[in-house]
């Protein structure tokens, strides 16, 4: 025992004396400090947003996340410290001293393990200390800090870091001890990283949640899963305890580690380790000692020495280094890990509602780029270290360094060998990707796209990392610190943006990506991508020069000598290369800067926020100023796709709808300085009183005020050009193929725009602005006079002439009046025959068109002959779901018109647009629909899990023709419920018919998940549904849950009757616009008295249930039926706006039921439950499998899975 302590103490002390230990410590300390300080608002020009602004950065939840995630970086430290604990003895050939000492194997291993574990914990302690120190910094945003609690700092260690050090460190320790090599440790660390990456990918399917929580060795995913539904109040106060998925994760991984450790203890042997392969040493026997023939010619063999062409050696050396790297089991393991990642990850490719997309090539490559880059980075980092240190570790450096090869030769050879590693991996992964496509029955191979994605783009980025890694290892000249520096680089790159470093010009290797779209290809992205690659390529050459100058050759020690050697190497050619590279770097950098900052306006997030602040400060005082409204829009829109330019000419007819005169016209332009205003003419005498291009504001003083009811025109000629490229984002509105331009991108917005203000409280505090409310009260009379969609109009007459290139089709809301070609341009004249919302967009592309029609039910109205043509404009190749979308359109048009009121248009069109954005949007009879959300979905009808979400999305957008285009809401709380929740409801009802109840439950499970996660990450406050402030998780997700349950409770027909009345009250009316008050009143009318409480709970309060089944037993009755008795617990809670919950008495109608093996209902009865605990008995016809309370999950319940339990007793 004392030997064990002595060994542990020696290991511990000697590691503490190493400078590297303290380098790790300091870097972790600094990163934690920086992270916390940034999250806590210390850096005014940083725009950090870590989760909800309402969760204190030092809350138990936040610390668990921060310490846990930063601790993941510790994998490098663990490999360096714990992996080396035993391996160092072999590397330094010290093993014989220890193995011949009178100590037991277990004392040696245990001592080394404990000692190194202690050091790792000391290093990790810096994370907590750094986090704590940050909270004491002056200048932190006091609102972002809570009270410091010791337990909040300690628990992340107890549940995450200490177990990680034990299990991951233990695995590394064992691997290195058994193999006496570090490479297995590196491979091990890549594998644990893969586990984490995979968990990140898998969690997209909520059914994988438990699996994802288990396969992340770091436990951070388990923490996320455990806490994902925690409300803000809980996140701020509740300590994360070892329970649920976290407990299981820790147990499983510790068990695995124990297994590895046992293997280590068993396999590790002093005897075998003490000498290296004694058997082979006998080879020297039998060689006759005196038989030295000494042929003098031996050394004089007339070999030609030619050292003048060292480059000819390069292929040989590259091959040698590459073989050394690749020709072993470890590389095979890495490749296998990559393949497994691909295969598992591809099961959830593009998952939406647990339904994946077809494995299109860009989807497959998308899996690999992005998060998988971390995998490649680690591999490159490790192998670069191995390459750089190869000769020195084998103590061959003196021999190799003394050979007459130029110093740059091994450097280049190692670089090229290193660069070939990602080539190999990418090739393997590409083949694997194609294999997966075949396995999934997708045979449209696009080798060219694969090559350009994986080699043409991503590989070049990896190569820069190769150069960087080699340079870092060359300059740092300490293997493990070199590795660590690379990890720090990677982390800084991940968070640079949030720390305020946004320009790609000063983030090495930062290359803005090129999003492939089947519609637009790489579009305009390539110039920028290639420019940045060239720029960083030049920087890589400079790094390479630095690597060369600092490259270790000979036994130089200390910086002084290395500097002297570097000076010596700074010869003509080197300087020449450096100068050329620098010239290229500076030149390309200048070119990029010219593009990003001179041709375009460069604005950091902070600058953009500042602009919003300036806007508010300068113009908020005019918010109540009376302004005219737009009553008609007549436009000539010219799209120039190849130039990415759009011009809009035309006029608004505007009318003063106020009861007071308008004497100033206030105009806003969304694109500010980028917009070219060629002409802007008001139909009445006026004078430009104020102009601020930066804030996009123009104010015209009217010489004669516009009297109430008086109208005039606002004529304009506006153009939005594209010049060069930008640092971030880009013009994805007008693109080569598949343009999608919202009118408001160019057109003036009348009146002060509240949307232009800075919204988040934490951002506002940073600029000294008071917090603001997001919306007016739902019954605010002024708010109800304003259209919730577009504040500067009610209904407008709309007409447009749209032109585009000759081979493209251009589409806008309205009916096509005429189409013609003039010169090289194609013209379309669209006109609406009735006023529409002031909400329109223009699209243009080379589309294929799928046509169908819907037979209008019932009496045709007015000018409508009855048949409504349906058209889908799509990218050829994206035919997968067209039929489903057309079915959905027909079903939705039928359902909605039957139940709510007639469809107001004579056509219906869906137009696909590139996946630069992933949404569909409902304009009058026109639905732009992203290629990313449905066109490529892979819906297998027989699969129990697949949800036909193209069907759902289409039905939702169809429903908006009623909710949004027939009924509009006021600009008040709850407004978006009337638009979105009703569209969700309509879509759900249409879906229900098509998909059946089982899949509806699946769908609603996703909605519940979305709601619960949404409220947990709320930035300001959660509101009841009827007061939703444009919060997506409420108006979509909770809206779905509530409306679906309501239809179940009230009956679909009865609810539809209320909705129809509401629609009839308000369709095509306003101002004033309706609020949820009117809607709820209509619903209450059809609600029986005993269910009125439901309306309060669903719309007016935030209510959650904690229902569960305790037990269920059954007995077979003589008549062949079964009597099921279940013990149930029902709890109801009311939450406040931050999720603080209060128990309330229950007296609710809740389902109790019995399910079969497929989770389908055998019997469900609605019972009045008015005690927390109750016992219920049901008699059923079929054999019961599960039974419980609210078995079909109609109510909002944070733990829906415990509502039923298996039935016992049969």
């Amino acid at each position, binding site marked *: 025992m004392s030997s064990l302590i002595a060994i542990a103490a020696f290991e511990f002390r000697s590691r503490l004396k190493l400078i590297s230990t303290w380098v790790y410590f300091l870097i972790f300390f600094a990163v934690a400090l920086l992270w916390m300080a940034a999250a806590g608002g210390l850096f005014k020009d940083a725009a950090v947003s870590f989760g909800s602004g309402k969760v204190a950065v030092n809350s138990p939840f936040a610390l668990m996340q921060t310490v846990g995630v930063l601790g993941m970086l510790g994998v490098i430290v663990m490999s360096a410290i714990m992996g080396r604990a035993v391996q160092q003895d072999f590397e330094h050939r010290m093993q014989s001293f220890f193995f011949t000492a009178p100590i037991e194997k277990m004392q040696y291993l245990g001592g080394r393990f404990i000692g190194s574990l202690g050091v790792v914990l000391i290093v990790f302690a810096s994370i907590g200390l750094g986090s704590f120190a940050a909270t004491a910094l002056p200048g932190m945003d006091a609102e972002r800090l809570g009270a410091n609690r010791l337990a909040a700092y300690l628990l992340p260690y107890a549940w995450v870091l200490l177990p990680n050090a034990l299990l991951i460190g233990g695995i590394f320790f064992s691997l290195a001890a058994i193999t006496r090599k570090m490479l297995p440790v590196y491979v091990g660390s890549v594998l644990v990283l893969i586990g984490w990456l995979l968990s990140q990918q898998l969690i997209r399917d909520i059914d994988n949640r438990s699996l994802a929580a288990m396969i992340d060795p770091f436990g951070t995913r388990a923490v996320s899963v455990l806490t994902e539904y925690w409300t803000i109040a809980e996140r701020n106060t509740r300590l994360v305890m070892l329970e649920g998925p976290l407990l299981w994760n820790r147990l499983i991984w510790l068990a695995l580690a124990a297994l590895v450790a046992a293997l280590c203890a068993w396999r590790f042997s002093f005897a075998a380790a003490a000498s290296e392969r004694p058997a082979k040493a006998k080879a020297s026997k039998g060689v006759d000692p005196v038989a030295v023939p000494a042929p003098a010619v031996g050394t004089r063999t007339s070999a*030609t*020495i030619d*050292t003048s062409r060292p480059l000819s050696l390069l292929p040989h050396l590259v091959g040698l280094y590459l073989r050394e790297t690749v020709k072993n089991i470890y590389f095979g393991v890495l490749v296998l890990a990559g393949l497994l990642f691909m295969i598992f990850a591809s099961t959830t490719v593009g998952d939406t509602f647990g339904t994946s997309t077809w494995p299109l090539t860009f989807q497959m490559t998308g899996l690999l780029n992005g998060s998988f880059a971390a995998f490649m980075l680690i591999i490159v980092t490790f192998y670069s270290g191995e390459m750089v240190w190869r000769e020195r570790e084998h103590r*061959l450096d003196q021999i190799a360094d003394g050979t007459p090869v130029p110093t740059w030769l091994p450097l280049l050879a190692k670089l090229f060998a290193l660069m070939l590693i990602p080539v190999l991996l990418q090739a393997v992964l590409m083949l694997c990707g194609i294999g997966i496509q075949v396995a999934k029955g997708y045979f449209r191979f696009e080798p060219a796209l694969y090559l350009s994605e994986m080699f043409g783009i991503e590989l070049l980025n990896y190569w820069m990392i190769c150069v960087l890694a080699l340079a870092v290892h060359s300059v740092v000249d300490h293997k493990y610190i070199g590795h660590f520096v690379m990890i720090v680089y990677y982390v800084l790159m991940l968070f640079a943006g949030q720390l305020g470093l946004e320009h790609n010009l000063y983030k090495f290797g930062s290359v803005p990506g090129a999003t492939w779209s089947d519609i637009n290809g790489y579009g305009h992205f390539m110039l920028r991508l290639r420019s940045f690659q060239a720029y960083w390529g030049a920087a890589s050459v400079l790094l390479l020069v630095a690597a060369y100058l600092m490259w270790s050759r000979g036994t130089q*020690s200390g910086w002084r000598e290395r500097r002297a050697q570097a000076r010596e190497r700074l010869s003509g050619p080197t300087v020449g290369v450096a100068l050329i590279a620098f010239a290229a770097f500076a030149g390309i950098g200048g070119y990029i800067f010219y593009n990003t900052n001179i041709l375009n306006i460069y604005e950091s997030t902070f600058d953009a926020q500042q602009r919003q602040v300036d806007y508010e400060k300068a113009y908020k005082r005019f918010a109540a100023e009376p302004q005219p409204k737009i009553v008609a829009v007549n436009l000539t829109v010219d799209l120039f796709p190849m130039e990415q330019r759009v011009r809009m000419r035309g006029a608004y007819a505007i009318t003063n709808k106020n009861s007071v005169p308008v004497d100033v016209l206030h105009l806003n332009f969304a694109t500010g300085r980028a917009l070219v205003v060629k002409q802007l003419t008001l139909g009445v005498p006026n004078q430009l009183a104020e102009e601020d291009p930066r804030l996009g504001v123009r104010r015209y003083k009217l010489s004669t005020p516009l009297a109430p009811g008086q109208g005039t025109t606002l004529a304009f000629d506006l153009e939005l050009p594209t010049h060069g490229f930008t640092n971030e984002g880009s013009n994805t509105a007008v693109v080569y193929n598949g343009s999608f331009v919202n009118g408001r991108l160019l057109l003036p917005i009348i009146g002060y725009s509240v949307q232009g203000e800075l919204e988040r409280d934490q951002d506002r505090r940073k600029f000294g602005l008071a917090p603001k409310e997001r919306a007016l009260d739902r019954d605010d009379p002024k708010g109800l006079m304003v259209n919730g969609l577009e504040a500067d109009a009610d209904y407008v007459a709309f007409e447009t002439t749209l032109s585009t290139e000759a081979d493209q089709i251009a589409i806008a809301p309205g009916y096509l009046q005429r189409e013609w070609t003039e010169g090289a341009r194609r013209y379309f004249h669209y006109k609406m025959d009735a006023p529409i919302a002031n909400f329109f967009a223009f699209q243009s592309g080379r589309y294929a068109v799928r046509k169908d029609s819907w037979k209008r039910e019932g009496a045709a109205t007015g000018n409508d002959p009855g048949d409504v043509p349906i058209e889908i404009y799509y990218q050829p190749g994206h035919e997968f779901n067209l039929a489903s979308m057309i079915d959905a359109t027909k079903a939705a048009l039928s359902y909605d018109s039957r139940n709510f009121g007639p469809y107001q248009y004579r056509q219906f069109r869906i137009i696909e647009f590139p996946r630069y954005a992933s949404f569909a949007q409902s304009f009058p009879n026109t639905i732009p629909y992203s290629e990313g959300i449905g066109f490529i979905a892979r819906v297998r009808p027989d699969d129990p899990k697949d949800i036909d979400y193209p069907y759902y999305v289409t039905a939702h957008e169809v429903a908006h023709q009623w909710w949004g285009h027939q009924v509009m809401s006021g600009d008040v709380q709850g407004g978006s419920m009337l638009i979105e929740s009703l569209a969700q409801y309509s879509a759900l009802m249409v879906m229900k018919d098509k998909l059946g109840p089982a899949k509806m439950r699946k769908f609603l499970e996703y909605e519940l998940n979305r709601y619960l996660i949404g409220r947990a990450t709320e930035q300001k406050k959660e509101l009841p549904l009827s007061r939703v402030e444009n919060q997506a998780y409420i108006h979509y997700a909770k809206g779905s849950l509530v409306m679906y349950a309501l239809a179940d409770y009230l009956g679909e027909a009865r609810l539809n009757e209320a909705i129809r009345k509401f629609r009839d009250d308000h369709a095509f009316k306003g101002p004033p616009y309706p609020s949820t008050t009117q809607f709820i009143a209509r619903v209450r009318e059809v609600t029986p008295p005993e269910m009125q409480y439901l309306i309060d709970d669903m719309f007016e309060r935030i209510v959650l249930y904690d229902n569960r089944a305790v037990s269920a037993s059954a007995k077979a009755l003589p008549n062949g039926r079964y009597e099921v008795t279940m013990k149930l617990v029902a709890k109801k809670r009311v939450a406040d706006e931050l999720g603080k919950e209060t128990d309330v008495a229950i007296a609710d109608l809740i389902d109790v039921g019995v399910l079969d093996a497929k989770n389908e209902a055998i019997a469900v009865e609605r019972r009045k439950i008015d005690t927390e605990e109750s016992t219920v008995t049901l008699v059923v016809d079929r054999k019961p499998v599960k039974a419980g309370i609210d078995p079909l999950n109609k109510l909002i319940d944070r733990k829906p899975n415990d509502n039923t339990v298996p039935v016992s007793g049969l």
Partner: protein
Amino acid sequence: MELHLTGLSKTYPNGVRALDDVSLTIPTGMFGLLGPNGAGKSTLMRTLATLQDADHGSAQLSGVPGVAGGNINVLRDKAAVRRVLGYLPQDFGVYPKVNAEDMLDHLARLKGITNKDERADVVASLLRQTNLYDVRKKALGGYSGGMRQRFGIAQALLGRPLLIIVDEPTAGLDPEERTRFHNLLVEIGEEVIVVLSTHIVSDVSDLCPRLAIMNKGRVLVSGTPQELVESLDGRVWSASVALSDVAAVRERHAVISTRLYTGKTQVNVIAASSPGPGFDRVEPTLEDAYFAAIGGHLGTNGAAAGQVVSEGAVFASASR
């Protein structure tokens, strides 16, 4: 061909003065660099092998065939040195899984033997010469210390080096291996410069017509073994004393070495005349010269560094 070292100095960052104004002239043939551990031999060797820079001083290789002007500035023109260099470091490793033939072939490429057939010949011939031919396909990891050392010399001989530097080559070799190794060195050491460092006097006396003795970074003496031995002629006295008396003898006399012989301690002292009763005059040996030099009793007078250059007989001091 000659190697001239002038005023070489080197101080390590930790303050150790490894080379202190070293000046030497080394002619063709075997040259022994003798000194205790830590004398600065390896630093000097590494400096000559271009692996390390000196702080001051110069090193010049002159009369090099095939080089324009025949001169190479060893400290500056490292590339040129490496083209004529064969180096066997004191401590080196191998890739355990690579066999001797492949490894030599690889190093031969690095040395500039580009022709494949020639390279194969050279490698085969060196493997024969070092008696490794039979085990050429065996992984280097399985080699014994002696085999590994022979492999080291084989790689040092690749490409017909003109300047061969072997640092403590016999450390860890058994006598048999050592003899074989010496034979090899002698064979190649006739036309080229071979600098051999060792702390074993007999290595030098067996092999080297010329030598220098170093300690604490300084060259104490250099010359032929005879010169060094002769400079002690008549001045070395030996006595057999009890172990307990050794300390007293050390106090009174300039003791250059003590050694145990049949249980008694034989003490060699240096003195112009008989140091006293019990002391017999003995024939000086190179070992006496070595210890005398280390002890500061010899050097910087008669056999000053590099003054006398003579083509000494090959095994001049082998008579010992």
